[in-house]
């Protein structure tokens, strides 16, 4: 009921400068069986004050992409391609320089807030630690002023500033996490499933806070979620990820009302919403990313698959309405792939997928 946030700007009509730009970004993990191509050639850009939603099933590389953008990757992983933050390619920077950017320039909001907060430290101490890491000479008064300011936006009363994490409810802890990320005012933030552990009413409160970040801080936000409803309500643009690739990206309204890629369409159809009148699902499961299928990675599960899909990897093309998608079937439908011969357009005889071969 407390409406603390006022909407000052309408970022959809006011796209700001490009904050983050990925070109052919790859993140691979080393395993005994060979490299896992968790993110395999992803390109997109994110503007100031814009929210880009990232959806896809589990195991499609969403979280790896999110962490890869921040540089929070485990041992035995490597990034390649280009990743520009305000024009500077971060992949060419020294590890120490990359480290300094985390927090200050690149923020991250995790799924489980309680595991990220130190149970022995008061909230005020969390803020002091965060702020001092990036500015050793910051005064106590300044720490308190900046902390209380961001807590106000998150709707946490100043009476709780010296409380411990366990004294807060689940939703309040997630607000604290967001506050701890935002107190450094990073221009770019990744939120990885920030509401998955929360109840629907609290989830809606958190989504509203994230949605209002662009008005309050002009943050560029990458919102990773498996919930298409959240994407529809909170995001300006949406990127659909499958098997390490962005298979479709575009304006959220356009992608939801006119999905180009069959994966996007089937994902939308399989979501159970209040308007669901029949149950739909995608057969099979996302592929093993050590050895993804040849051609289009989605072809073994795709109801629209053609002969060409099993052999040639589709090219990303821009479609009417502004969405970009990589799909042969969508290309033909929109008259974009004239060079592929007629014979290649015959429906693909797909192998039967067993009912139980599912995610």
């Amino acid at each position, binding site marked *: 009921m407390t409406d603390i946030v006022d909407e000052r700007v309408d970022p959809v009509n006011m796209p700001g400068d490009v904050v983050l730009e990925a070109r052919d970004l790859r993140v691979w993990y080393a395993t005994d069986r060979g490299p896992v191509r968790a993110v395999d050639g992803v390109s997109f850009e994110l503007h100031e004050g814009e929210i880009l939603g990232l959806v896809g099933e589990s195991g499609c590389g969403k979280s790896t992409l999110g962490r890869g953008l921040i540089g929070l990757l485990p041992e035995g992983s490597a990034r390649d391609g280009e990743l520009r933050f305000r024009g500077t390619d971060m992949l060419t920077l020294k590890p120490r320089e990359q480290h300094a950017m985390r927090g200050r320039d690149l923020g991250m909001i995790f799924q489980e807030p309680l595991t990220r907060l130190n149970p022995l430290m008061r909230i005020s101490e969390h803020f002091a630690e965060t702020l001092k890491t990036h500015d050793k000479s910051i005064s106590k008064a300044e720490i308190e002023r900046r902390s209380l300011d961001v807590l106000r936006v998150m709707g946490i009363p100043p009476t709780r500033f010296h409380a411990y994490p366990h004294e807060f*409810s689940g939703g309040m802890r997630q607000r604290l996490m967001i506050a701890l990320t935002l107190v450094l005012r990073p221009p770019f933030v990744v939120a990885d499933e920030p509401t998955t552990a929360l109840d629907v009413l609290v989830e809606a409160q958190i989504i509203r806070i994230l949605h209002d970040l662009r008005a309050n801080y002009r943050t560029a936000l990458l919102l990773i979620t498996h919930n298409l409803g959240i994407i529809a309500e909170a995001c300006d643009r949406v990127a659909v990820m499958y098997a390490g690739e962005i298979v479709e990206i575009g304006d959220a309204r356009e992608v939801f009302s006119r999905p180009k890629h069959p994966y996007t369409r089937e994902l939308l159809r399989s979501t159970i919403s209040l308007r669901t009148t029949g149950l739909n699902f995608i057969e099979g499961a996302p592929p093993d990313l050590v050895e993804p299928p040849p051609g289009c990675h989605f072809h073994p599960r795709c109801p629209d698959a053609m002969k060409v899909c099993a052999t040639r990897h589709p090219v990303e093309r821009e479609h009417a309405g502004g969405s970009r998608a990589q799909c042969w079937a969508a290309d033909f439908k929109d008259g974009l792939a004239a060079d592929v011969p007629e014979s290649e357009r015959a429906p693909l005889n797909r192998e039967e997928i067993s009912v139980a071969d599912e*995610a």
Partner: protein
Amino acid sequence: MPTKPEILSSSPTGRSEVVLDIDQLAVHFQLQGGALSRLFGLKARRVRAVDGVSVSLKRGEVLGLVGESGSGKSTFGRALLGLVPATDGRITYHSQDRGERRVSEMRGAELRQLRTDLQMVFQDPHAALNPSMTIEEAVGHPLVIHKIASGKALKTQVAAALERVGLSPVERFLPKYPSDLSGGQKQRAVIARAIILNPEVLVADEPVSMLDMSVRAKILQLMLDLKQEMGLTYVYITHDLASAKYFCDRIAIMYLGRIVEIGPTAEIFENPRHPYTKALLKAIPEPDPDRMVPRDLPRGEIPDAAEPPLGCSFHPRCAEAIEGCGWESRDLRTLIEEHWTRKVEAYDDEKAVIGDLGSLDQPSTTARIGAGGAGQVRALLDRIKAEKPDEPLWKGVRDIEDAGNAVEVHFVPADAPKLRRAGGVDVACVLYPDES
């Protein structure tokens, strides 16, 4: 495309018989107090997880229990199977073969026997399966425990159950360990284990919420198919109203251990009555880009079940609350804190006027606040009221009295509203006149 099957609210003979009758069920948990409080004989705190729930389950229906975490829906589901003992009230199971049985009074062997008729599917299939048991062992385990089958007969029945839940070719899955299977496959195995004893009632506690969205529909479809084939009755526990809308014949909305609204699914969704039901419906994120982030949602979170709010449990978050909803001291604390959240700059000065807020934590219809003179406290309360004049709490203030350096705010006392008939549903809310 599979569509929603006809509602089977009655048995094949057309009679609408009750299979489980729950009467004023209460499940309370005693919290361990500290050594000191026990020494001084202080009252140990009790969490009222389920607090007087009455509902009857008809044979062949799907009853949905919907609520947030902490609403008591899972405890209720467990109590139905005797997995947690009932503190009060009665659960009566009308068995098709064995007549009437009192679940709430059963112990030990009797309860184990009951599990051949009442079974449960848990939320996390990974935690529900023993990692060192193969699928064959896990699914066949109930038959072994109840000494129903062994040897070849056991293997045949396990294979039939796996076939039934779609885990075929069966030979491929029998020797697998849970860690070899995907989430959806594990949940199928858990369902196979639950149906292998041919139960009458299946309590499914969030059976799809841990699964990827691309398989949720598949598992729900499987459950609908099994219901048709085996004549099962379901209690479907979930926080997800969208799947409940599709899956259930009747829905009970739970909040803090009580049912606040119960009725046929269509009526609940077309004409929600309880403010909590309305809020839940509004909060569901819909994959519709024309919908914007909802702004008028209830504040706060589900309160502590050990110290529930006075009056109606939902009143502190309710947008439609009126004077007789049970306003009290803790609500005043929330209001003052909200004011300071908005006006951080005034916090230090005003805190001196208000003094310690700790005294407001004891639930009471009389709230005593202030340390800096009654006049100043009154002026501050007036300022807070002026910021948000339509704040429902003020409706519940009967009067404000000076008390030395402080003031005493008296609220209108209220009882928790009972379920009453309103249109086609039962709702526990003072906004609807009690017709009984």
